[in-house]
């Protein structure tokens, strides 16, 4: 049989270009669910993923993903801030807009031009028919009362005005370290978004340890002096679909960079229905693969939602698998815009 003596050499040469880096990468990823990372496969488009497994938080579900973007870390870092998912219809994000650092209620005008679909119609209906005794929206007692009063008095459609006020208040309280006073009044109890976020962030102590320094510079840490707080790299609000009904969310992205790596934490501290809070943590490392400067991205998705508490056993296992598929869709959309 004729052999192909050059094939092993070619493979060996290819491996040589990543092997020195691979040792560092595995060391960098020691806090994560991934080991023995195959950078070559990731560079080829593979998204490596892991379900978060059992966590001690009934309403939480988590996942981790690892992938390579064919762009420099600075480009990926910027894209994390400026990416607008609404251009990818499969992600069902109807609106995503960044806010200026000194925002006013007029900066939420995008709510007046949402697409006319059944998902958004469900949100409009839920707003117009809001009943504080059986709330279908995640509002505080004061927000609910304001909505009812506005609906009773309004001559014109109060949708944009009401939600602009609600979002503005939520953002203001978050940035001023008052997230702990925010609540969602539900028919069967009260939810505190800050508590949800802390439970999610503490769910995996290794991940928490990795992000502790960055998170301690955000308003999530009680008592943080305003002058020592990190300024958000982005403030945003968005409208997206949750099980056929649109939800309005708002969040902030914090980033910290060192010569070796970049960390990013996207904290969505308010959602109007379907989801309580989310956190997306990303960490970027420069890697050289076959002579190209690329970026290795580790990502964790942490979600707290009412329905998750009702998932048990195999249902929860299956939901974790579905979550990986959805995160993968988002990663592929994101990556397609980076390279």
């Amino acid at each position, binding site marked *: 049989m004729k052999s192909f003596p050059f094939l092993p050499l070619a493979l060996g040469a290819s491996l040589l270009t990543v092997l020195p880096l691979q040792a560092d990468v595995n060391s960098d990823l020691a806090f994560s669910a991934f080991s023995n990372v195959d950078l070559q496969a990731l560079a080829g488009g593979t998204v490596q*993923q892991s379900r978060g497994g059992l966590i001690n938080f009934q309403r939480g579900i988590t996942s981790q993903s690892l992938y390579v973007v064919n762009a420099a870390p600075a480009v990926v870092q910027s894209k994390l801030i400026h990416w607008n998912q609404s251009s990818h219809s499969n992600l069902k994000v109807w609106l995503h807009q960044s806010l200026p650092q000194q925002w006013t209620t007029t900066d939420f005008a995008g709510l007046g031009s949402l697409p006319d679909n059944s998902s958004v119609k469900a949100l409009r209906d839920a707003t117009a028919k809001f009943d504080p005794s059986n709330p279908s929206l995640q509002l505080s007692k004061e927000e609910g009362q304001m909505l009812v009063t506005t609906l009773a008095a309004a001559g014109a459609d109060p949708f944009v005005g009401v939600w602009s006020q609600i979002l503005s208040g939520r953002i203001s309280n978050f940035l001023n370290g008052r997230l702990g006073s925010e609540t969602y009044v539900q028919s069967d109890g009260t939810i505190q978004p800050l508590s949800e976020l802390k439970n999610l962030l503490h769910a995996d102590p290794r991940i928490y340890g990795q992000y502790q320094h960055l998170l301690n510079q955000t308003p999530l840490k009680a008592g943080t002096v305003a002058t020592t707080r990190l300024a958000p790299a982005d403030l945003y609000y968005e409208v997206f679909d949750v*099980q056929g009904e649109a939800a309005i969310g708002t969040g902030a992205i914090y980033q910290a960079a060192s010569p070796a790596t970049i960390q990013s934490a996207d904290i969505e501290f308010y959602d109007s229905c379907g989801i309580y809070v989310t956190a997306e943590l990303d960490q970027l490392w420069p890697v050289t693969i076959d002579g190209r400067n690329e970026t290795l991205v580790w990502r964790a998705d942490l979600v707290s939602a009412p329905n998750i508490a009702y998932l048990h056993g*195999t249902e929860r296992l299956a939901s974790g698998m579905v979550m990986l598929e959805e995160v993968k869709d988002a990663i592929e959309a994101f990556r397609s815009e980076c390279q």
Partner: protein
Amino acid sequence: MKQSIRNTLLIAILGSLLLTGLRADDSKDEIAPTVAAPIEESTPVAQEFTMEGSYTGKSMTKQGSADLGGVANINSHFNYVASPQISDGFLLRLGIDSERNSFSLPSAAPLPNTLQSVNAVIGADLALGDKILLRAELHPGIYSDFVNINGNDFDMPVQIGASYLWSKDFQIILGVQIDLKSDLPIIGLPGVRWQFADKWVLSAIPPRPQLQYEVNNSLTLYTGAELLGGTYQLNDAFGTNHGHGPGTNNTQLNNNVCDFTEIRVGAGFTWKFTPNLSLDVSGGYVPYRLFDIHSSRIGFENQSEFELHNNIGNGAPYGEVGIRGSF
């Protein structure tokens, strides 16, 4: 980058739990300077139950081409399974299952009044990677007409199922049932679950293939079919006591096995009236019902069969109500 995991992440594929009491106050007053690892102190245990009842009206039953008269069926079913999660991807399944078919019969029909099962459920769910879920269950118990119960009434069907997550909208399912007493000792059936539009799901999964339309998060309408059945031991005097009329008997049917099959087609709705409980109501038509009486297939000896059935088009209406829950 914000995640877009909000759509099918929240597919509460089933199940729920009342939140009261779970809304924990946060004891972590700040993003603490020290890492406090949450400790999972107990094994999570999921629980699920089903209670169903249905009535099928009288349908003309035949032996060969001879009419034996109308046969109606009251079916009741109860199932409870607890699933302790041993590790992230491994859950045990331990429970009980009971089903009863109670027939109203014409006096001259060599048919059992009751076909019933009471059995344990012993099995496990296993995640293989991030795409495949496996379920294997043993169902040891009594499957018979519940007359003069003895060791012959014991059976242990085995069910093995696998589902492959092709995408969040499309899954492939393969199920196999092994029951050595049955006329068909090994049955394998494929299925798919395909969410082909926002509110539409084709759940072509035996024994209940359905086309579903989600009206809202609480209400789903469906149309489809249902395959009801099982393999049951008849008592050792069954043929002696069930002849074609006074003074006749069918002693060759003594100690035989009956494979019972009822095919239903209909429509219904599922109403999730609390996050963890749902009511299912359906109705339709039973076009075909079969009693296949034969000797035990264990040993695989050749025996003649004795079939009683209704002709298609000579069926009967049915109505069914069920409650399901998971905690």
